[in-house]
């Protein structure tokens, strides 16, 4: 076991309302500790809203504004500009939204805010479905995953949010996972130091929704990264790619075997999924290398 030095200030307090073993709570604990107290959170309806606690209590030590499900990025824009108007330019606005609120219903206003390059950090706690309503599919749900609304397995692929947001030319887009904690914290720190729209997608294995044992959430997160199902990378200014975990070390079947949502998958489907992951990985590697060559050429 390795001991990692991380910021420890408890901005997310114990006693919060997350399920035991929840990876969202673990991730957000570190995200908030890294962001610090001069931060305001925008949290739409989602698991995180529940974790934040019912009024008049709050598990977060910072102000929280809860917007409607589809309006996080618009609400964050309004909040940001109000702070700017008051001269509070150093106060960070942090969105903590789910994938339903990001990939689906909140996507329109997120695209708009990114186009305006509004100054906030948008973190999507991506548990790949509507887990707070009992596990239905979102456009982040991966191919073949079973959910309440795709009982036979989803027939289409997961939307590539990072690429879409990077295409807006925003300064910082990245993916992260609590299984790679130093990387997660480094990305939050980096995002915090940048002005403009910053978008970080954090994979959150949902114990209940994915069918993962209470003590296996982090393992699932790790396998997702190691198999390339959820690669860790950064895209700066829409063009500069960095692959943070540069090797794929597991077949996707290892990752699938941990989760009930992939139960009974045909071997052919596993092969199809492996093919999709390999192709996406190859593209990422190529883009990451492209950036490197450019850097060398410039340097």
């Amino acid at each position, binding site marked *: 076991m390795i001991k990692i030095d991380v910021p420890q200030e408890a901005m997310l307090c114990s006693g919060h309302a997350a399920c035991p073993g929840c990876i969202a709570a673990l991730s957000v604990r570190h995200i908030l500790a890294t962001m610090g107290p001069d931060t305001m959170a925008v949290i739409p309806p989602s698991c995180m809203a*529940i974790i934040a606690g019912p009024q008049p209590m709050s598990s977060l030590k910072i102000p929280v504004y809860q917007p409607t499900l589809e309006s996080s990025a618009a609400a964050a824009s309004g909040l940001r*500009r109000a702070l700017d108007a008051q001269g509070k330019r150093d106060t960070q606005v942090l969105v903590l939204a789910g994938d339903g609120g990001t990939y689906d219903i909140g996507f329109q*206003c997120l695209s708009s805010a990114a186009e305006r390059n509004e100054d906030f950090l948008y973190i999507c706690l991506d548990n790949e479905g509507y887990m707070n309503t009992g596990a239905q599919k979102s456009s982040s749900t991966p191919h073949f995953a079973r959910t309440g609304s795709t009982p036979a397995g989803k027939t289409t692929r997961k939307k590539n949010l990072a690429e879409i947001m990077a295409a807006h030319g925003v300064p910082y887009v990245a993916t992260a996972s609590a299984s790679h904690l130093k990387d997660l914290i480094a990305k939050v720190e980096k995002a915090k130091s940048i002005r403009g729209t910053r978008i970080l997608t954090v994979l959150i294995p949902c114990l209940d929704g994915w069918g993962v044992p209470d003590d296996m959430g982090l393992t699932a997160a790790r396998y997702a990264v190691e198999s390339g199902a959820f690669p860790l990378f950064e895209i700066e200014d829409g063009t500069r790619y960095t692959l943070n975990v540069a090797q794929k070390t597991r077949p996707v079947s290892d990752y699938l075997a941990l989760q009930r949502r992939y139960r009974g998958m045909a071997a052919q489907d596993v092969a199809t999924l492996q093919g999709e992951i390999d192709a996406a990985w190859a593209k990422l590697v190529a883009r990451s290398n492209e950036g490197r060559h450019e850097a060398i050429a410039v340097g």
Partner: protein
Amino acid sequence: MNTPTAVAAPSAQASATASAPDAARRKSSPAQSMLVTGNQAVAWGARLARPQVCPVYPITPQTPVLEQLTEFQADGEFDAEIITPESEHSVMSACIPASLAGVRVFTATASQGLLLMHELLHYASGARAPIVMANINRTVASPWAFWPDQTDSLAQRDTGWIQLYVESAQEALDSVIQCFRVAETVLVPAMINLDAFYVSHAMEAVDIPASADVDAYLPPFAPPHKLDTAKVESWGNVVSQEMFYRHRQAIEESMARVPQLLAEADRAWRERFGRGWGVVERYRCDGASAVVVTMGSMCGTARDAVDAMRADGHAVGLVKLRLFRPLPAEALRAALAGVRDAIVLDRNHSPGLGGILHQELKSALYGMAGAPRVHGLLAGVGGVNVPPRKIVEFVQAARERDPQPESVWVR
């Protein structure tokens, strides 16, 4: 559950701490008379009120408001943060937390845009965010049309917004500023409604007050609670049934104060600027046996009709309802006491109900001893022109027959 932060619902208490905009950034402008449209007058009202955040999305016939504000800003006369999101839905979504952060917020919309905001209109009043918004009353699709019709805003009557209906560009300008004063006192958002084209695009000479006088009239927004990392409070999370019940009661209590507060705000305005608009205006109602009741630009036409009927010796008057939400029932009862026939002209349509003002007026007068007979006329729906002579005909016909429970289509 750990409870590190106190999360208090905003309440309508006064506060001594102001978040005044930087005085150095406050540009002053002199009193002047200008030939402007209703939309430009709205923009002038907004400029003089000095909002700090203005999210706005273009829609016919509101667009000139947006363009005038961005022009003011480009000229260095208006230093609000203007946000241009992709939809009216996002406009209102941005307005609410900006207001909760403690800054004055203004926006403007029309028709479909207002309907797209619907969910957020409820959200804004629930959050006690005293946003002021101008809405240009335009037909609601489908089919598409661009005519004056008040169905768009009347369909928002249950959203918890104060609603005013204005008749002229001057009244629009004055109302924007008055509304900030009232809305920020009770922490309830306010909507100023002006009819498409008749008011929004018609030009008239408008007295633009000096900015210093408006500054003296309208104090900086200083809410008792706000989103602030220095004093941690939050808004929006789940409440119990009991808390929800009390929250709605608190909104109702605040709404109930509005007629009186608007009357006071209008009186103070009259003292300072020499004109006022009232809450409910009685025009030539002395001794009237029949009174036309309507809102918005139709009032101007009705004044001509009343003048014509008075000239012919008929005791007819006009009651102009300026404040529609909260409905000033007492003022309406007082205004219509002793009147035999109230003829309501509705430039709106609620299918299955008829005219919305017709229904609202009947409910306001219910149980009143000697209440007038209420005739509901669907006149001008879809922007159909209603000239003064038609109003004369409507009044004559109504007086000669018993009122119907349903609204009657007339043209």
